[in-house]
Each structure stands twice: as C-alpha cells, then as structure tokens.
C-alpha cells in the first residue's frame, strides 16, 4: 500500500506504514520510546526530546467533535468537471469534514459522509474508522455513536 493512496500527493516519508495500517483497518500513531510522547498524525521524530526511536500504537477511535465544516468550493484535485454529455449537469453535494479528539493532543480529521450538516454539533461523540474508496484510495470517516 503506497502512502500516496492516503495523502494524494506525497509518497516519500518515514511513516508510510500508516497507510498500510489504515488499509488493514487500524488508525495508528507513533510513541517516542524515550519520553513517551504520542503523535497523531504519526511522526518519525520526536519534537519533545529530539530522539527518533518510535513505536507504532493503535489509537482509540472515539472522541468528541472539536469542529467541522462542509467545503462547497473544492480545490482543483477535488473539483467537479463539466459532464461531457450535452444538456446535462451534475449536482454537487459535498461531504462534511470534521476533527475529533480521541485523547489529549490526538486529533483525527475525517469525512462525515452520513450526516446532514445542520445536525452536526461541536462536542458530539463520534467514532473514526478507516475507509477504502471505490478507486482504491484509503481515507478516514467519522460517524456519530
């Protein structure tokens, strides 16, 4: 599993195991073997003690929603193209995104595919899960619990 299947652009990193774990159904973090600081997103190097010996650890998946939005004007990579068929149009309904905190200093960003934007509230309890998209890319989704 290439890291780019998660990150879209960047493929060369010391933490590319993250994408493999995600494909295997786990959201993983790194923990510094020296000082115990835990990082999500995972880091290969510890900015607390400047050491680089880390071990991988699965994250808890439930937490409270810190914030959210729904982006209606997407960047180029996600932009909707005009359909090629004459007289036809596509209806674009963007998917909300949000950030949940599954532990102190451990925020997980994800798509919120199953909720109406008006029903999403800061503070609500949600669960993060890996999700394989139809094109083989891998991502994270959030849903209420």
């Amino acid at each position, binding site marked *: 599993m290439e890291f780019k299947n998660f*990150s879209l652009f960047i493929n060369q*990193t010391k933490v590319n195991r993250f994408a493999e774990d995600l494909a295997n159904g786990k959201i993983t973090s790194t923990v510094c073997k020296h000082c115990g600081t835990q990082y999500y997103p995972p880091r290969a190097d510890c900015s607390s003690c400047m050491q680089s010996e880390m071990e991988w650890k699965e994250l808890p998946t439930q937490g409270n929603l*810190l914030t959210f*939005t729904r*982006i209606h004007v997407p960047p180029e990579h996600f932009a909707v193209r005009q359909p090629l068929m004459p007289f036809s149009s596509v209806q674009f309904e963007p998917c909300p995104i949000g950030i949940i905190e599954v532990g102190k200093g451990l925020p997980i*960003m994800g798509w919120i595919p199953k909720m109406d934007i008006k029903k999403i509230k800061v503070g609500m309890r949600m669960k993060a899960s890996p999700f394989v998209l139809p094109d083989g890319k891998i991502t994270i989704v959030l849903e209420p619990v």
Partner: protein
Amino acid sequence: MKKVAIVGIGHGKFGIRSDASLRELIFEAVKACLDDAGLSLKEVDSMVTGVAGDEFSFGIQPSAQVHDYIGFYPKPNFRVEGACATGSVALRTGWMNIVSGLADIVLVVGVEKMTEVPTSVATEIMGRAGDAIWEYPFGTTFPGYYAMIANAHMAAYGTTEEQLAMVAVKNHYYGSLNPYAQMQKEVTLEKAMTSFTVAYPLKLFDCSLITDGAAAVLLASEEKAKALSKKPVWLAGLGCATDAMRLGDRKSMTSLEASREAAKAAYKMAGIGPSDINVATVHDCFTIAEIVAYEDLGFCEKGEGGRLIEAKETYVGGRIPVNVDGGLKSKGHPLGATGVSMAVEISKQLRGEAGPRQVKNAQIGLTHNVGGSGQISLVHIFRRE
C-alpha cells in the same frame, strides 16, 4: 535599540490586474513610494521583497524580477516568505537591516500576482498552505480552515452568521471609499447573508478576494528619518510568533495563539496596551478572522468579538476603528503585498492623509497580519511621535 521610521509610502491599484505583470506591479508601488519620500533609488542601501507563492507567478526568483526591472542591482535584495503574512515579514526584515547597522535606508516591497492562474488552481495552491500531507486529503481549502474556526467560535460563544456578515458590511463600506481597493462597492447585510456558501458557515461575502497588487514602504534610521522626512512614522513595537501546522494540534480552536503572542511582544516593546491604539488594520482574510483578531489583540474580551462589531465599535467614531481601508475583504488580498499595504494605510492615518476614512487625530496605529490559518502572525505598532 536604534529607532526606525517609515519615510515613504507607495500603493498600487489592487484588483484583477490583467494589464500588468508582477514586476510592473512592483514598479508602480516603488515609484509612488520614492516620490512620496522625495528620494531616488541611488540613495537606498538595501531592499527586501515579499512574495508568498512561486506557483502563481511562474518564477522561482521573484526578487530578481524586481531588482532587475527597477534597476536596483548590484545592491542587496532578497525574497522573504511567511504565507499571507509575507508583507509583514518583509517589513520586520527591513527593520532588522537598519537596527543591525547593515543599512540606513531600506526599501520594503510586497507583491503578489495571483490571477495569472485560474481561481480553482489558486484555491488549490492556498489550500496546500495548510498541512499538505495530513489535511489536504480531506479536501481542505483556506475558507475550510477558517470555517472550522467559525463553527468552533459559534459553538463556544454564540457568535452568529449575522455578526460575521456585519464585518463584511463594514469593510465593504470603507472599501467603497478607498480608491486603491479591488471592490469599491457597498454590500447590504441581506446580500451578504444570502450569498452562496463557500465553506459552511462562510459565504461568498465572508471571504476575501483573489487579488493582484503591490505596496512599498521606505524605512530609515533615526538620523536619516529626521533629516529626510517632515512626518516620519515610527515603528514602535514588533511582535512575531508561530503555532502548530494543523488546527487540531492547537491549544485553542477559537483564537490564534500566534496572534496573542505576537501582540503581547509588540505591546511590550512599545510600552503600551490595547486601549492606547487609535486605529488598526487586522487580517480579515475571512470575516471570522476579524472577530477573532479583536479578541486576540485585546480590543475586547474573549468571546465578545461578535458583539463588538454588532455595536459598531470598530467603525470610525467607535471605540477602536478597524480596517477602515476596506480590509482584505474589500481592498483585496495579494498575499505578499497585504502586510506592506497595512503599513501604508496606518502611515496615512498617522500622517492625517486618509481622507474620508481618516480617524481623527490618530497617534498610535497597529497592524496584524496572519500567515496561513495561524501558523505565523506578526503585529506591528506605529507612532506619530
């Protein structure tokens, strides 16, 4: 510490400048700045160029384009960058040049030529100013980041979408009075409230513009400033601070910690507090950003920003007039030029030359310029005396 003053200001027209290239935009601002100071380039020792993005303008050496076109070589010039705070990074670097003794007179220019690429491409370039590895895969954009700050602020303090729109109404009103502004027209609250959603809850009129433009200031040491200028504007306080890349890693999602730290440093250096400020330009890349800035700069208590605009306290005549040049919202936001443009506006105010937008007898002014979604922030304080 050595004292440094602004002795010349120049501002080009902001807007969709399909008539001009990056180097030609700079020329307009530099010419106006030198004319204002009554100096020629021969008398300038050194130069700093602020440009935020290479991808907008197809060149990895924007500073070379500039010193070539205005004929500044072989004297020192280099480019600095701090995303949307680039212009203030350039000003701070110019100040360092003089305080260090390397130069007595320094030209500081900021420029961005953003409309050479389509809007969707510009949106993508700016969206990557967040975390390109860990946030962009979720389709994040600049409006998206500030929309998340807005939703957190609304949930914590009861800030409303109407209050956000009121910032747009104010800034468009003042933009309509600024001949250099991109959108010189007023908007009504109803129009702002019914415009289409860009990133929930932010609507079109909550967002700043994609802009071409340039601005320049000439800095001088105390001795030179007193000899050259009848109305120098003194740089009395400088603050610069940084914060985590990702929103989720921040101490707070309802304030920008970098701005709070930068403000603290600038106030301390100037020996004043928020209540001493007569006029301010703040980084209103989105309406929520102006409300958060009121709080981060100490113009009101935490959580009270929405009520400050609702009470019209940030209009001329109010407790603390903010962005009476139209702000990024209506004047436009050419990334690298914005911080320099803010310094130009505050200089005009302190020189009493702001025309219909003048804050009566303004003595002390402040600029607040944020990079990205708060990864870097700079606060500068200016005094007339």
